[in-house]
Structures are given as C-alpha cells and as structure tokens.
C-alpha cells in the first residue's frame, strides 16, 4: 500500500502582531477621511468643473487666482493629503488582498508608498512655493493681480 501524501493543508500561520495596528487605524482613517473628502472633493469639482465656464476656465491664471486665497490653499492642501493617503491606504488593502507572492507584494506596496509620499511632498511644495507671477511670462497668461512688468 503506498502512502498518498496527505491532501490536507497545514494551518495558516497567524503572524504575531506588533507595533501600530495598521488595519484598525487604516480602517478608521478611511472612514474619517472619507467624510471630509466628500466635502473637499465635491467643492473642488464644483468650483473647477461646474461653476462658471467649467473646465474651459481652467488655466494658469485660474490656479494662481485660487491660490492667492489662503482658504483655497488650505482646502487644496487638505485635499491633497487626505486623498492621497486615503487612496494609498486603499491601494495597500488591495495589494494585500491580491498579491500573494511575498516579493510581488513588497514591490507593489513600496511602489504605492513611494509614489504616495513623493506626490504628497511634491504637491505640498507646489502649493506653498507657488509663484503666481513668474518673471518673463506673457501677461495674458498671468492672473490679473500680477504687476505688469
């Protein structure tokens, strides 16, 4: 009688927990940020796509005009951070769900983490180091409040 290898699977190993509980805080964060994002995103979309001439109205001058107002600076910063972290964390869940290969998983997770972090930094820098009236630009591209050279 030959022995057929036992077909049963070994018990999944439950990894011990340690450090920050990402799942729990991630879960809470998704919901908290979600509620705020609804306001931020719909506000953003409304102003950019619906109000006035819609998307047609958007150009450098439009952006510069918005960011001259600290209100919109704060709005867009919050939107940037909340949405990116929300999206990044969402992507993390997805990758954990579907990438079964440890290597693939690590690579993808790092990719999401890096791109999210990078873009947050980039975006923040853009908002705060923004110069509404860069020198040497045709005046018709600039917002009206720029001093005419």
């Amino acid at each position, binding site marked *: 009688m030959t022995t*057929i290898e036992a*077909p*049963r*699977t070994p*018990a*999944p190993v*439950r*990894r011990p*927990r340690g450090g920050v*509980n*990402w*799942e*729990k805080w*991630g*879960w*809470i964060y998704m919901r908290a940020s979600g509620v705020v994002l609804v306001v931020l995103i719909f506000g953003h979309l409304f102003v950019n796509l619906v109000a006035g001439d819609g998307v047609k109205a958007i150009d450098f001058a439009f952006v510069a005009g918005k960011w001259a107002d600290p209100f919109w600076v704060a709005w867009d910063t919050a939107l940037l951070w909340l949405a990116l972290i929300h999206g990044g964390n969402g992507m993390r869940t997805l990758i954990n*769900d*579907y990438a*079964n290969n440890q290597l693939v998983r690590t690579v993808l997770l790092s990719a999401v983490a890096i791109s999210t972090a990078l873009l947050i930094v980039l975006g923040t820098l853009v908002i705060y180091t923004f110069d509404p009236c860069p020198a040497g630009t045709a005046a018709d591209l600039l917002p009206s409040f720029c001093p005419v050279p």
Partner: protein
Amino acid sequence: MSNAVMESKPSIPEEIPTFTATLIIRRFDPEVDDEPRWQDFDVQMHGTDRVLDALHKIKWEQDGSLTFRRSCAHGVCGSDAMRINGRNRLACKTLIKDLDISKPIYIEAIKGLPLEKDLVVDMEPFFDSFKSVNPFLMAGSVPKAGKERKQSPVERARFDDTTKCILCAACTSSCPVFWTDGQYFGPAAIVNAHRFIFDSRDDNAQVRLDILNDKEGVWRCRTTFNCTDACPRGIQVTQAIAEVKQAILRGKA
C-alpha cells in the same frame, strides 16, 4: 391488512408532478484529474425534492463515485454547503423547484478552501480559524456550586442570533476577502467570537477582541454581505461583524 395505512404513506410528494432537472456538477478526482471538469446529469425529480436528493439520486443510481458530504439532510449539521447556481447554499435546504429548472443547475464546491474531491473541500483551515478565537466560555466568576450563573432574558437575547451557527462555512467561503488569500479569519470565526463577546457570563471579551483586532481580523471585512446572504441559519453575519468592530473601537463589549 394491518399495514394498509402505512403502505400508501408518502403521498405528499406524489401530488406534485415529476420533472427532469439537469445538474452540471464540477467534478474533481484527485487521483485522476489534473483539473476540475464539468459533468452533466439528468435526474427525475419531485416538487419537494432538494438539491441533496438530486445528488443522492445521481450517486445512488448513476454514478457512485460522485462525492459530497452530508448527514442530517435538514439543514442543522452544516455538512453540505456548496455553490448552487453561483451562490453558497446548503444542498439539503435548497428545493429544486425554487431554482429555475428550465436552465441547468450548476453545482460546485465552496470556494477558497482547498478542493479535495468533487464537492468536498478541506475544512481544516476553516476550523483552525474557528478555534483561534477562543470559542468557549471564559468566565472569571465561579458559580455557586450546583447552581447556574444567572442571566436575564435580555442578556440572553443579546447574542442569540450568533448561537445558531452550525459551522457550515457557507459564509466564510462566500466572502471575497477570504477567497483572496485564505488568511482572513472569516465571518464564521467572527460570528463565534461574537457569541461569547456578548455573553454576559463571559469575562474575557477583551482577549477575543484583541485577537480579532489582528491584521487578518475584523478590519479585513469590506461589508460585502455575501456572508449574510449565504448563511443558511439566517444569522445577520455582517451585523455581528459590525458589532465586533464597534466593540473593538469602544474597547468594550
């Protein structure tokens, strides 16, 4: 003479006409097949017959090698959860006439647990998850010798729903999150944790909440409700999971 009465007994099914149903079953014989294959069977059924009766008919009259688990045949033992027309159901609780029999009935094993043969899957990972939530009363108090612990009907009702679980795995194996990597504890384990977390006689809710606050714990539930829909005992599974999540957040059952 003496038995005239009993002879004509099973009259109820006879009143309902018979019909032919086609079952398409996903078969897999680990000793022969590399991959599962689909096989068709035509069976003559009565109106009150269940899918389990159809499977029995096939096994007993057509192909004895068709393999599935079953025991009680009326939905209380949890042996025969399977995917019937794309949804997890107990074969013994699904009446053929309630399915659309103008089309073939697709039957396959539940998903997310290793397939062993035909409709049989490896239940060990499922029971391991169950065991890992401490599914037993852990009371700190010692009841008076020879006396029950007291519990009011209201306290008793708090966890009534989740005591109905028969560990059939229909819920866990319907959960899209469980399918992904099989690491998630799964709704059944959470249901059974819920049963004790909210039992007024139990003093160790926190231990279970800590276990379920794990990476593979309640937070992986994405409220897809497949579990609630699949549960043959009508347990409000997603509700139970939501209650456990809230208990973890508030730190108290």
